[in-house]
């Protein structure tokens, strides 16, 4: 097991290197120039050129890439072109809201989606099944920002139960923290719930037709016990896989959700950086997201051995 973990961690290095090269090249080739944005409307072409030179953007690709890669290897993500602050500082400011949003969304989605999927499989073909699957399709189909606006309108503006926007650090209390996260998490969680519920249903349908389930029922076990202890544990591997894959969905959805609810997270940092062509920030955030995704998938792979003792690495 330890050998496997070591190999997987080592395999992360070339993956990150490819991501780094890809991101750097993409930004180099994409149109747009931070110097022109910094210089503003009053600037002359000479001003823009001077700013470009002062930022080192006039140097050849390989020189810039080499310097950047060398800094990354030393743990230095660079300095934001616009804010003049270290990228690590900017990321550090934004990690808590995004991690909070993702964790609450994840918990909410799993708590809702897994029982719904189990219920739909148990009552396959019934009205309940159709209702659950209808909700899942709706969750997939309605854009995140539409859901966000509707929830904010109803629960913040009309009922006044929750704030419209913003983020309160957990250090200032559990309820203020949660109050700011409920609407964004429900918004972001709907797609995730749809995905997990559908996969849970399909996997459970397969498991519920297995002989050991029939045996368990024949032994007189309670339905709840059969569903959640015997069947769900054996259906868990595909469900956990989808939860892992869905992290990418969460990262993408966080960009929109953080914008709609004005949460100062990594998603908004990314969008702002892209619009301004703040290359060091874009590179830093994309590397972080890529690393997170790789790490989550590694964790999921390791979790397989816990869920299914037959799996050995």
């Amino acid at each position, binding site marked *: 097991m330890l050998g496997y973990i070591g190999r997987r961690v080592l395999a992360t290095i070339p993956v990150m290197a490819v991501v780094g090269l890809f991101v750097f090249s993409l930004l180099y080739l994409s149109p*747009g120039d931070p110097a022109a944005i910094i210089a503003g*409307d009053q600037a002359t072409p000479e001003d823009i050129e001077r700013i470009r030179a002062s930022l080192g953007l006039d140097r050849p690709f390989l020189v810039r890439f080499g310097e950047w890669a060398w800094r990354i290897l030393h743990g230095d993500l660079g300095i934001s072109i616009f804010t003049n602050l270290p990228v690590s500082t900017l990321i550090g400011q934004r990690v808590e809201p995004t991690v909070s949003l993702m964790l609450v969304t994840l918990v909410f989605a799993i708590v809702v989606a897994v029982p719904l999927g189990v219920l739909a499989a148990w009552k396959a073909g019934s009205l309940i099944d159709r209702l659950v699957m209808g909700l899942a399709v709706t969750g997939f189909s309605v854009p995140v920002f539409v859901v966000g606006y509707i929830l904010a309108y109803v629960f913040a503006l009309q009922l006044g139960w929750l704030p419209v926007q913003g983020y309160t650090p957990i250090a200032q209390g559990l309820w203020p923290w949660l109050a700011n996260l409920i609407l964004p998490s429900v918004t972001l969680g709907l797609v995730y719930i749809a995905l997990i519920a559908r996969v849970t249903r399909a996997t459970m349908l397969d498991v519920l037709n297995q002989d050991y389930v029939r045996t368990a029922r024949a032994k007189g076990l309670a339905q709840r016990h059969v569903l959640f202890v015997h069947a769900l544990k054996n259906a868990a591997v595909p469900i956990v896989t989808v939860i892992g894959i869905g992290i990418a969905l969460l990262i993408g959805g966080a960009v929109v959700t953080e914008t709609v609810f004005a949460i100062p997270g990594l998603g908004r940092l990314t969008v702002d950086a892209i619009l301004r062509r703040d290359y060091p920030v874009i590179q830093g955030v994309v590397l972080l997201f890529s690393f997170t995704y790789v790490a989550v998938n590694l964790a999921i792979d390791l979790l397989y051995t816990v869920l299914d003792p037959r799996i050995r690495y």
Partner: protein
Amino acid sequence: MDRRTFLKTTAALGAAGVASPRLAAPALAQGAKVLRFVPQANLANFDPIWGTQYVVRNAGALVWDMLYGVDSTLTPQRQMVESEEVTDNGLTWTFRLRDGLRFHDGEPVRAADVVPSLTRWMARDPIGGMIKAIQDELTAVDDRTFRWRLKKPFPKLLYALGKTNAPVAFIMPERIAKTDPFTQISEYVGSGPMRFRRDEWVPGARAAFETFKDYKPREEPSSWLAGGKRMLVDRVEWVIMPDTATASAALQNGEVDWWENPIADLVPLLRKNPNVVVDIADPLGNIGSFRMNHLYPPFDNPKIRQAVLVGMNQEDYMRALVGDDDSLWKPLPGFFTPGTALYSEAGGAMIGKGDIKTAQRLLKEAGYKGEKVVCIVAQDQPITKAEGDITADLLKQIGFEVDFVATDWGTTGTRRASKAPPSQGGWNMFHTWHTGADCINPAGYPAVRANGDKAWFGWPNLPAVEAGIAEWFDAADPAAEKAAIDKTNAAACEGAVYAPTGFFLGYQAWRKNVKGIVKGPLNFTWGVSKA
């Protein structure tokens, strides 16, 4: 992972959250008044000389003070300066600073701080560059006195020092002001009415300012950038909200107090809320525009540029921008801000009336050869997107071949600086807008200049326009200034320096418990109180 490991990990994550002070709201004194403000854009940097975006200027006006400041009649008034003397020949100016001015770090403001501050400003400001070109010497005489010797008189000197358009001549401590004008400062110490809380700055999310207790406001009542800048709140928090619907909801819900620029679509909704006031933001408004590249066909031909000006219908543009509210826009047969002293319609009778038939005739007479017009339209800016859609239709109606390039503002900013042929990454046309405050005269208005290679993007080369502008700079009285601007406007219309798509106003909105908000080209926070 077993249960204990899981609990340990969760606890560690919680601790990480607790250890993140930047997002935490600061401990405020009981009863402290906090004004929460939604600015027009993100405060992504905070050097008002290095980055000339309006949002930086607006924040800068809280933190840095100015030698002079224009009032609501656009007249420069003394601000940090106590008195000034000018020799009869207009070549030597001697300024004396007010007593007791201090920077936020407690150090006194000295003439030695003013000199490098003005030097840095002149390197980046168009009118500052003109002063630098005729400057003989700028020196500190003593701690409170500095002298400016010029090679020729510059009647607009005080206006230049007090103007609203960026970059503004803010005064910084000497050690900061000596930073290269093309390198960003990293210390934000001013002598203005508020201190910048750098430790609370989360670019893209929040910026905070605290009242500077040692600030010495002038005795006169405040008027725009002039007079006593008295802060009536303890703290101002800028809350960055890129989404207009969210900002609207936050204002209605009382989560923010003042929103700088609500879009016209949301104004009817805001007006229905009894706790929200909506009014015009800036009476000087904005001038919509698209620029044609004078270097390449077809717009190197003045008759073809004329065809565009004659064919465009400003009403179409304005309705696309502000909807059906006729009080929000005016036709603009010229280039200077309506309602100001120098506004001129000279030579503009044919502009913007939507005379397609005449435009088609002019195009034919000009010998248009069917060159594709590369029309750049930034889709992420509501103003340029609306303008671009109208322009594409206009060009087709007149008979142009159009290559519509839908892109973002960042790309537009880069591509418009390219002098390459349109087929090789250059352009024929791009859309933008100018704030009316910038267009009241030629001093801070590079878009109206027509000095060829040195001109703004599009590089018009129209000597008659430049002659009119030079006449304005030398004008000694209002009548002479007006005559010069009439000449400039007529020449700019004839040569089509750019295409003005009309004059339009924008809104601002605030909660009813906020008082003292004035209309102007920036959000003047002094004099604003919150019940």
